[in-house]
């Protein structure tokens, strides 16, 4: 039986609706950080804007709530210059895949060592229920009264197609698994995505807790996460059965592995070398 100790990471009061799936995600995040024995001052949680994106407000680590859709660029840059930080992005599906879609693509390409936890409620929560990129075709909202006319995005397929090294799916209602996925994602050397199914009880009346509960199942050892084509086919599974777990895991060189001049002393701790600058100036002479 594990020793009971005071958790390092504490949670604050939230502005979420009672019963929201975000609570489970926040709890798992806290559990993951505690289990990893990280120190709050060395953890940076980044969000954009949205319900999910308020997560950094509610946990006592460093927090950065930037602009809607723009969580990834500052997160990546913070890690580039201050690699002692454990950088985690918690934000919404709209934030990550809608307004922020372009950063999602190129953050994967960059492969900086951050973890990206998407609270995927398949809806825009904070703005009261418009379709998000993952909303099903035909789902009716106030703004899509004839049903959403677009194909839903499959974030896992997308991440795999872009070459992400760690691709997983969690569910806010399976907290143990989610905590485990978060830990693995944080430990993973490189960009790691966990797309987290999250009921929004106020605005998504289709993908409810019960809807997910009925469909999700945990991937078992028969799934080989190092096999891309297996991962691609698991990523396409949606509807009656929805797999949870690590679909794909394979380390690739980091962005910084290609930039040897950044090895060694972190940028934040470097001092400029006057001799180098003098040489540059002299080169102009």
């Amino acid at each position, binding site marked *: 039986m594990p020793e009971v100790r005071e958790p390092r990471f504490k949670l604050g009061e939230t502005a979420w609706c009672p019963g929201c799936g975000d609570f489970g995600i926040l709890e798992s995040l806290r559990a993951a950080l505690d289990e990893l024995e990280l120190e709050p001052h060395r953890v940076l949680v980044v969000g954009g804007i949205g319900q999910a994106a308020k997560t950094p*407000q509610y946990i006592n680590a460093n927090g950065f709530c930037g602009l809607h859709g723009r969580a990834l660029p500052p997160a990546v840059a913070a890690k580039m210059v201050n690699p002692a930080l454990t950088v985690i992005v918690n934000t919404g599906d709209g934030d990550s895949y809608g307004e922020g879609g372009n950063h999602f693509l190129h953050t994967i390409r960059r492969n900086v060592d951050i973890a990206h936890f998407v609270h995927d409620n398949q809806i825009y929560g904070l703005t009261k229920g418009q379709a998000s990129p993952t909303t099903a075709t035909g789902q009716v909202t106030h703004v899509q009264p004839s049903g959403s006319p677009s194909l839903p995005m499959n974030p896992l397929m997308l991440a795999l197609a872009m070459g992400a090294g760690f691709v997983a799916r969690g569910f806010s209602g399976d907290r143990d698994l989610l905590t485990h996925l978060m830990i693995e994602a944080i430990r993973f050397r490189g960009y790691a995505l966990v797309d987290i199914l999250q009921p929004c009880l106020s605005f998504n009346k289709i993908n409810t807790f019960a809807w997910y509960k009925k469909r999700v199942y945990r991937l078992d050892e028969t799934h080989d996460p190092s096999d891309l084509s297996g991962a691609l086919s698991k990523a396409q599974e949606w509807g009656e059965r929805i797999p949870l777990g690590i679909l794909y895991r394979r380390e690739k060189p980091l962005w910084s592995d290609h930039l040897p001049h950044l090895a060694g002393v972190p940028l934040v701790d*470097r001092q400029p070398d006057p001799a180098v600058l003098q040489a540059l100036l002299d080169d102009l002479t």
Partner: protein
Amino acid sequence: MDYNLLLGGAAGQGMETLTVQLEAVLKRVGFHVHTTHDYMSRIRGGHNFSQIRFGDLPLWAPSSDLTGVLALNPETVLIHQSRVCPGGFVLVDEGLGLTGPDLLALPLARMAKGLGEPQAIGSVALGVMLRLFGIGWEPLEAILNGLQGKKDLRSPNVEAVRAGFGLVEPRYDPPSPAGEALHMLNGSHAVALGALAADMRFYAAYPMTPSTAVMTYLAEHMVETGVVVEQAEDEIAAINMAIGASFAGVRAMTGTSGGGFCLMVEALGLSGILEVPLVVLNVQRPGPATGLPTRTEQADLRFAIHAGQGEFPRMVIALRDVADAYRQTQRAFDLADRYQIPVILLSDQYLADTRRTVPILPLRITRGPRFISDASGLEPFSYRRYVITEDGISPRIIPGQVPDQIQCVDSDEHDEWGHIVESSVQRVAMADKRSRKLAGIRGELEEPLFLGDPEAETLLLAWGSLAGPMREAVSLLVDQGLPVGALIFGDLWPLPTGELEKRLPRALHRIHVEQNGTGQLASLIREVTGVSMTGSVLKYDGRQLTPVEIVAGVRKAVTSHA
């Protein structure tokens, strides 16, 4: 004494290299050099040219009169021949089959071929031109040998230069050397070097003419300097990355031109409300939208001042010349850091691409730990990022570096802890805290540069890169017996009013000289002082005003107002 050479041809004919080689030699001989570039938005073909002025005194602008032309194609002859002064020359390869006055048709290609280096036509022409100006072979050879190792210079072929040297006799007296050590650089280099001297460690940008040269220079030197130069997927990412890097503890910057700046506007406000220091470079080009990508304009001033929803303190500083660009870029980082605000640097294509000699730039590295608090002595987890202070500045810490202290920042309105609030009282407290910084910022403002006759009843007002042409224009006007004074603004927002208050009331003629169509400086001055201009000299065709154009425009404005 100064001379003025024009090198013209199609994109892809190697003119850029030739220009760099010629000016490098001229500078090393000891002359002051001033080079401007006129190029089209295409990679091959079209008509591009450079103008290289050199002489014994500092040069501040291109001149309309040409001593000589090197024409790599007939179009260059056609377009520029008329500007050649009496006694001047138009150097062409004899193979072009051109004849006419001033024409100096020489076997450039044949000589190059003879040496087994058909590519070396440019070096042959280099030899011809240097010889025409009476430069001796011995010093020249030493210089040419010295250039061999230089990066980015594709060294001239010494044999070919010698061959050209042998084709003509000296025609012109060389100017006397400047007699002091000089740096030669363009506005893009100056900004990059100023940023490095300010200890910038992170530069993220998306390529956009005419700002790309800053990124390119920094990237070329990132290994020695140990900085991050990251090409972002778009300008939104670029500025948000810079904000993230700055939050995480290093000095950070982004750069772009107007179109990219548009995309950065939301994050400018992010820097404002997060109080994360940020330097943003906007190298202006003519708009709207794509406009004239490789040309110059000063039409983003009001936009830079007002960009972003809501209200927050910022500074807007225009860069006036290369030395100023070096100094002001460094200053921008200090101000951004001290006041935890965004500082916008306004450059333009003319300044970015104009290379000139300046007295040696001093190296003074300014980043110290003084703008970061160590937060020592605080209770665990008691650090408040936005503690309300009298001057509006709350001490920053670097995340991860102070055990048991964390910080939260939020683009929503927030309390001292950085937590979202909605109350009127807290909103007002935080907005007031931010705007109190303006008092400090006002104390830092630099008055505009004053040139010319302090007693003159004609006052010219200009900003940014018109500083160079204005210097020569003011001298010309004074020489012509029209006494004028001129204020050249660098700091533009907040607008320093000391000189204005002193000089505007006495000025009968108040003439703004701007590289735009609506008179943005004039509108700003009127907004702040209530005083309107009496005349305008405006140009918005994408080409920089020359001193002669300014002189003509000012004379006309004075006459029509008198």
